[in-house]
């Protein structure tokens, strides 16, 4: 009875917009109380935030990403990728894909890509003769492309919550990420050729100009991504290096951001970090209760009686994650992983493989109607009705889903590099 009341109270508080951390914290307090345990157990777990390994990667990458997004690095990146790939069939679309993937990986997939790059790319695509619907769909889906590449914040958060090696996750996500990028590039090339889009001839001078302009930005991905893949840096080391590098390059060398704007920018980025970490901290308490009460085991028993097959479980997991992502990616990871991961392991799914499935699924959630964040952002940024965007995103959604199916049912795609 009291459990029903607690659940009802939590649901109604959620519906009127109470912050997620109050729901998790309140539920944790109520459940521990009903089990006769003092509520400070919730806080003991919250305090455990300070002992999570690699935690510093979250504030450091977020701060660096905010600075990058505020600088003129996106424009320089576009110039460079266009000089490199613009001559390919469907070149500009490939440019858009590559630039957005890189930018999203470095800024943490919080939707800034659509805002920062989408506005620049849409007029360029239309001017070159790409169909409007294709261009809108492309840009709406690229807002989360890059989630699978280092130093993507959601991967780090998954590693923290699931207690899986972040290094292995980055390795495991590489092939699926490239597969997705390659499939999308192929599609873009076909659409570009059909629409008779003009190509920009390759120009050595142009490339040289773009390289000179971006000379200080170019080493960053090599240092950070290369350092992580080579095992030279841990995620938190890479984050520290990136923060220092970005500060030096964008503030002192390029001077894109005046120094007086820096404290405000720092505070703004830490608001996001605070919002993520209170959810994570309060979820640790709730999770601790759920694991103690063997809720994942009971759920597994229930599910297993219903469907003993791993394949069916994976289909259900895919569908479940699409719905969960209506929340928002960080909360979705923090809340769903501790419950889903132990169940999946009992089904015999590798936790690293599960991580890749999770992240790709969440990426698709970003562009799933009606509430996918990228669609809402594109609606605001491009001032097009949601209905148009739903239709525009559909082919990209299908490609993503096909890649998800491949990644889900062919574990070797993820595990060949990491194991």
């Amino acid at each position, binding site marked *: 009875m009291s459990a029903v009341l607690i659940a009802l109270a939590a649901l109604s*508080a959620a519906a009127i*917009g109470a*912050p997620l951390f109050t729901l998790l914290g309140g539920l944790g307090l109520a459940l521990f109380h009903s089990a006769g345990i003092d509520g400070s157990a919730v806080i003991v777990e*919250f*305090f455990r935030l300070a002992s999570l390994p690699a935690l510093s990667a979250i504030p450091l990458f977020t701060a660096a990403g905010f600075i990058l997004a505020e600088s003129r690095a996106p424009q320089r990146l576009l110039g460079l990728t266009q000089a490199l790939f613009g001559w390919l069939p469907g070149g500009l679309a490939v440019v858009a894909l590559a630039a957005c993937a890189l930018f999203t990986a470095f800024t943490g997939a919080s939707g800034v890509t659509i805002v920062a790059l989408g506005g620049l790319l849409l007029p360029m695509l239309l001017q070159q003769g790409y169909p409007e619907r294709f261009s809108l769909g492309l840009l709406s889906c690229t807002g989360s492309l890059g989630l699978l590449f280092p130093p993507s914040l959601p991967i780090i958060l998954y590693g923290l919550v699931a207690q899986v090696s972040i290094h292995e996750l980055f390795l495991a996500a590489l092939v699926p990420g490239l597969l997705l990028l390659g499939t999308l590039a192929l599609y873009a090339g076909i659409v570009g050729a059909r629409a008779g889009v003009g190509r920009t001839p390759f120009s050595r001078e142009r490339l040289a100009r773009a390289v000179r302009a971006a000379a200080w930005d170019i080493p960053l991905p090599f240092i950070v991504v290369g350092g992580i893949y080579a095992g030279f840096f841990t995620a938190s*080391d890479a984050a520290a290096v990136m923060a220092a590098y970005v500060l030096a390059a964008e503030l002192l060398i390029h001077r894109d951001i005046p120094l007086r704007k*820096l404290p405000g920018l*720092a505070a703004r980025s830490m608001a996001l970090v*605070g919002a993520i970490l209170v959810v994570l901290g309060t979820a640790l308490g709730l999770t601790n209760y759920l694991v103690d009460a063997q809720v994942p085991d009971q759920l597994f028993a229930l599910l297993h009686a219903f469907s003993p097959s791993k394949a069916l479980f994976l289909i259900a997991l895919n569908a479940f994650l699409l719905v969960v992502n209506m929340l928002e990616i960080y909360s979705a990871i923090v809340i769903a992983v501790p419950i889903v991961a132990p169940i999946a392991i009992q089904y015999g799914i590798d936790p690293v493989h599960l991580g890749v499935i999770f992240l790709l699924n969440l990426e698709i959630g970003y562009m799933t109607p009606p509430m996918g964040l990228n669609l809402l952002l594109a609606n605001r940024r491009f001032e097009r009705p949601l209905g148009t965007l739903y239709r525009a995103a559909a082919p990209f959604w299908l490609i993503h889903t096909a890649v998800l199916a491949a990644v889900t049912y062919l574990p070797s795609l993820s595990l060949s590099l990491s194991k």
Partner: protein
Amino acid sequence: MKKTCSLIESRLLAAERALLALFLGLLIALSVLQVILRGVFSSGWVWADLLLRHLILLIALLGAGTASAEGKQFAIDGLSRLLTGRSKAAAALAAQTFTLGVCLLLAHAALRFARDEFAAGRTLLSIGGFELPQWVFAAAVPAGFLLLALHSALQALCSISDVKA
């Protein structure tokens, strides 16, 4: 009353933001220093690592405070999107009151946690002869939840005038 509440809220926000910028600067400086020490000299300071981790706890709580003030906390928020005018203000007031209540309960639980830590008297880190006890950071948790409670109380007071209007 709404004016006073917004004024207090904006002052509080400015103070939190200044502290956040300071702590983030410290975090970046210490982390980079550690990477250099480890990479170049194959050594590092144990205290710096511990300080870093607990600094993030302070950043989390202060950052959550600013997220509350700026309406950037993660929420599911299904129903209130559909509401307008007074009913929207009433829903906001209910959500803020709920938040206030939970934050006070969390602060109360955190206070007991901090008291236990104080009684245990553990040392978190020592730099030279200086010893920093763990309860200092444990005490930041109730303070942080009180801060979040304060934000929601101020917002609830603002909403009361919205509901009346």
